[in-house]
């Protein structure tokens, strides 16, 4: 499966670090910008503003129109090649970045959106508005993921609901959306993301892996349907 990840969080691009691609240069070819590949087989292509900054601490202090323009380029001018799936990671909100991505992807097909929430009401309160955004822009909601859902103490196995529990599932019911599943808080997951390691390779036995895999499989089957 050939996958592309487009990171449109221009102010806070986290994808390059999480996929351990460092600070490669972005080259041009006849077909446009060449994406950065996370793997030698070139099955995982990435584009992020993180690759375009000389200094990774440099702030991207741009107003909406400039962000909109770059996102347009990311969609149209990157030579993605043949992809099975293009994933777009977005910042929080319902503003320039989200509108820009949709406007530029309209000419292609947008299969839908996966919405991520944490369990507590302060989070689902904002995600309700994101659901409205999807409905208003005719983006199909593939489902809702409840992230950071409970923490199992590695010392005694006691489960603590650090950010409450169940809000994602309730939100799905309330809004008639598919509940894709819960992912627990897992220090192994956060540590591997810090190091840019592949969590699924490193900890295939973990219940977090099972949770994520199930969600992925559900999303993929809804795409085939």
């Amino acid at each position, binding site marked *: 499966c050939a996958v592309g990840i487009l990171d449109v969080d221009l102010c806070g691009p986290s994808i390059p670090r999480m996929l351990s691609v460092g600070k490669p240069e972005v080259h041009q070819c006849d077909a446009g910008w060449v994406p950065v590949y996370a793997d030698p087989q070139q099955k995982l292509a990435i584009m992020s503003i993180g690759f375009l900054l000389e200094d990774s601490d440099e702030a991207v202090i741009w107003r909406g129109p400039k962000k909109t323009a770059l996102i347009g380029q990311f969609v149209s001018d990157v030579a993605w090649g043949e992809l099975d799936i293009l994933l777009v990671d977005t910042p929080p909100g319902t*503003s320039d970045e989200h509108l820009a991505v949709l406007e530029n992807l309209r000419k292609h097909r947008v299969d839908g959106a996966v919405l991520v929430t944490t369990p507590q009401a302060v989070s689902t309160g904002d995600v309700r508005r994101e659901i409205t955004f999807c409905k208003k822009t005719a983006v199909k909601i593939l489902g809702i993921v409840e992230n950071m859902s409970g923490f199992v103490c590695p010392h005694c196995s006691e489960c603590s609901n650090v950010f409450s529990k169940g809000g994602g599932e309730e939100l799905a019911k309330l809004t008639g959306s598919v509940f894709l599943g819960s992912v627990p808080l897992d220090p192994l997951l956060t540590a591997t993301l810090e190091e840019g390691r592949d969590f699924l390779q490193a900890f295939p036995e973990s219940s977090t892996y099972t949770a994520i895999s199930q969600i992925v499989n559900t999303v993929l089957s809804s795409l085939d349907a």
Partner: protein
Amino acid sequence: MADVPNDAPEHCPGTSSDQAGKSSACQGCPNQNICASGAAKAPDPAIEEIRQKLTSVKHKILVLSGKGGVGKSTFSAHLSHALASDDSKEIALLDVDICGPSIPKIMGLEGEQVHQSGSGWSPVYVEDNLAVMSIGFLLSSPDDAVIWRGPKKNGMIKQFLRDVDWGEVDYLIVDTPPGTSDEHLSIVQYLSGAGIDGAVIITTPQEVSLQDVRKEIRFCKKVKIPVIGVIENMSGFVCPKCKNTSQIFPPTTGGAQRMCEELNLPLLGRVPLDPRIGRSCDEGRSFLTEVPDSPAAVAYQNIVQICHRRKVSVH
């Protein structure tokens, strides 16, 4: 001229933008020539109006982060509660997260509406001495989405600063969304006459957060906002059963402490994860009064004391 005039086309870049009059969206706009000539970029008269309006506000503090979900709104709300616990002080909390306004819920003010009077919009009072303003109060349903581009968000922020009747205020706390974009530039621009005392920066311990927070600190330097200090939130979790501490968000690159040492900034404190914080926020109550003995509440109170003392620090 208004940042987005009423007769502007849909993709108007804003009259104060570098692209004013020059962008492709400007074709056919009746204001195109004015914008292209630079006449529209004269200082926005609102800046002086806001300066005058806010002469009754003694201190203005921004709460910033480069990263989402680190606890800015939680901190802004509880900083406001803590400052308001002194009855002799008047506190105001302004929520400029236009797309994701959390402050009404955290302050227990969901469903409240804003009233207009001759002297402007009245903020919503949660205590006699604690006033709150958020776009949340202008939305009629919890499902309403604010699908606005930058220029429209900027216009709202200008109104919040110019048209709200804040009255005599000792501290105005401004809660922001994550990032370094329209909302942040507008707050700085519109308060350029009135002045900003400083910013408190919130992070979680891991590099994925610090990476974005360093950018926020650069933003502060660029727009000349003093940084009062940094708070490391979600700093460790103590299991209620076995009392062992887990680093759920591990400080793999030294956490906020190392970053503060490198950037010569004060670390105001570390706040541990506590499920009761989220619960209090969901219920619209202050966890400082709900669970005052919790390590998190103690950490918060210490941080508030330090902010109070450092309010005019220069970094």
